[in-house]
């Protein structure tokens, strides 16, 4: 049995910072053997947490990506009909009895396991990630409930298959539609908010080695400020990491207004949001710090400056 502090440490070793609430939720989930429903804004690491959990537990991750139109067959199992038919034709000449052939044709060899069946027939409990469950339709949700409650699957030709080991189930949702109360009741629920400033700096350092303290600080501060603006799509942690990588590859030691402008595509993904950001630039300017905003007009042409080193321009 691992406790919350151990979960925190082991996640941290793998570059994933969990707060105390989430770590405790994971601990409870493992202890109670109940599915954990994770909701939160896009890009806070909901899916990633399942991957890291699988690593921490030293087990496999089985992922069921939900989409509209996902049905029981695609999630559970399917007989390999072409192979069965081929086998039937080829084995006609053989002397084996009908029963033998039938038993063989409906054996596991001809069964295509889809994620849910796969998850309950493993020798060790895997981590089953049901990703973006809100994208599947209501009918699938009802079916999922049944599997999550019983942990058994009935295949008419083979009989009932019971889970040898209950998988650790993580469901994620982006809240594009309301999930049913029934599904919520079967699950533990945790909301992952955007990280705090200190957490985000910690995440940046953990995931982007070699990032300077100042740059991490600036990125995190700008992200916090941006998330407070009325943007259509607020940037998540994934965006922070992308941005940090981008700035590292551009060899920037700190952020200033021109650099922000040029790398904005890493952060804001909707065109209108640029306008919103520019309208609120007063909130961002203090973070960009000691580089004056009028540098653009006072020094040199920005487009010819590759990496600040090649241009002799007055700088402070």
């Amino acid at each position: 049995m691992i406790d919350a502090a151990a979960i925190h440490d082991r996640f941290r070793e793998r570059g994933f910072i969990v707060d105390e609430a989430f770590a405790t939720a994971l601990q409870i989930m493992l202890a109670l053997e109940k599915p954990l429903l994770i909701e939160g804004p896009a890009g806070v690491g909901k899916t990633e947490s399942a991957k890291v959990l699988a690593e921490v537990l030293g087990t496999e991750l089985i992922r069921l990506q939900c989409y509209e139109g996902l049905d029981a067959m695609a999630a559970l199992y399917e007989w390999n009909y072409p192979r069965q038919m081929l086998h039937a034709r080829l084995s006609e000449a053989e002397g084996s009895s009908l029963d033998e052939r039938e038993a063989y044709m409906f054996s596991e060899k001809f069964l295509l396991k889809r994620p849910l069946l796969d998850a309950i027939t493993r020798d060790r409990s895997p981590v089953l990630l049901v990703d973006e469950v809100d994208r599947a339709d209501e009918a699938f949700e009802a079916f999922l409930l049944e599997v999550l409650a019983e942990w058994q699957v009935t295949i008419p030709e083979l009989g009932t298959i019971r889970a040898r080991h209950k998988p650790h189930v993580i469901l994620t949702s982006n809240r594009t539609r309301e999930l049913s109360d029934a599904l919520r009741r079967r699950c533990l629920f945790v909301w992952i908010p955007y990280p705090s400033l200190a957490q985000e700096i910690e995440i940046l350092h953990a995931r982007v080695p070699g990032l300077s303290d100042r740059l991490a600080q600036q990125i995190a501060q700008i992200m916090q400020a941006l998330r407070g603006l009325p943007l259509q799509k607020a940037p998540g942690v994934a965006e922070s990491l992308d941005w940090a990588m981008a700035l590292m590859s551009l060899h920037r030691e700190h952020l200033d207004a021109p650099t922000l402008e040029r790398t904005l595509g890493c952060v804001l993904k909707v065109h209108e949001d640029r306008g919103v950001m520019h309208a609120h630039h007063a909130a961002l300017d203090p973070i960009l710090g000691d580089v004056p905003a009028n540098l653009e007009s006072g020094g040199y042409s920005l487009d010819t400056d590759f990496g600040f080193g090649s241009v002799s321009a007055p700088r402070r």
Partner: protein
Amino acid sequence: MYPFASLPENLAAFCEALRREDGFRIGPGELHDAARALDVVDLANERAIRHALRPILAGTLDDVTVFDDAFTRFFFPGPAGVRQDQLPSTRREPGTDAEGRDSDADHARHARRSGADADDVSGRGSGPMIPIQSSEGLEEPTMFAASSYSPLDANASDAPELPRIEQAWCDAARLFVRRLHLGLSRRWRPASRGRRFDLRRTLRAGLQTGGEALSARWLRRPHHAPRIVLLVDGSRSMSAYTRTTLTIAVALASATMRVEVFTFSTRLQRVTADVRRAAAGELRRLDRLHHAWAGGTTIGACLRDFLRRFGERMVGRDTVVMIASDGLDVGVPDMLRDAMRELHRRSAAVVWLNPLLETEGYEPTAAGMKAARPHVTTFTNVSDQAGLVRLSRMVRLRA
């Protein structure tokens, strides 16, 4: 000092309090899980207990936002900074019921719930548990405060009644919902004739005919029914028309579960639950509307509020947004324009039902209507059952 002497009793009392005062849905299963969870965590660590109970007892984001308060109120009553053992004992004997605070409980719950909603609004920058002072968070209350003293605002006593609907309206709504479709769903359904061959079913059916697949089985894609969001303007200028719009709302609720109903004037209110119950035949008044009825209208602010609080969940590419309003707006036209643009961008269609269209020679020249018009896909009016059926053909959906 905890109310009871033993842990399970305290836990049960806490769950009871959450159920009664905050409307949590907690059953014996959750209680059992909570007790098991307390076995796992360190009982001396208050934070750990909070974090352990929260995932079990709180099922939604709304629940999460009120959970911590409720926890503090129950286990640490009294002012902050006072040691627990110095407080007067509130210990009760097991078996005696908690004091009857039921009359206040409902009010308190609504107050806290609306507080939670406000958090939801401003909480995009930070966690729901951390109260933050974002500029938007401050903006909302002032907006409401200003409107509460508006001369346009009327008394809330004349609560509108949800009309009982006739069968003809039900039929019209059912027809409307059936005809309104967004092309084909992604799901394959068995059907007698279809586009795709169903090997599995064909082979199974073949069992009856001695293993030879004689009769073919098919799959086809069913029509994809959209979700509907109906926003009803409850301002005084609409009063002659509200009965019809509410009838439409109830009729739609009787025809499909995929409908959400809101009323707005100076603020937005979700009335889906009331409308559903009215559709089930219950006589209901919309008595919880505070400022949302018979006042002036700030459509833009209300739509923006709607998008913030519910937009993510309720407006998608499969949603038809229907706004029933005369477009006489006392708010800022720019705000209305932005909200309408966003609604249009995210939904399958935006229908604006405007009763003034019945008036001879009406042109949408009011500032609000003018701002909204470019982002409306269908601009019309529905006054009777036939009109509702006709509307299904007029709505142009972007599938």
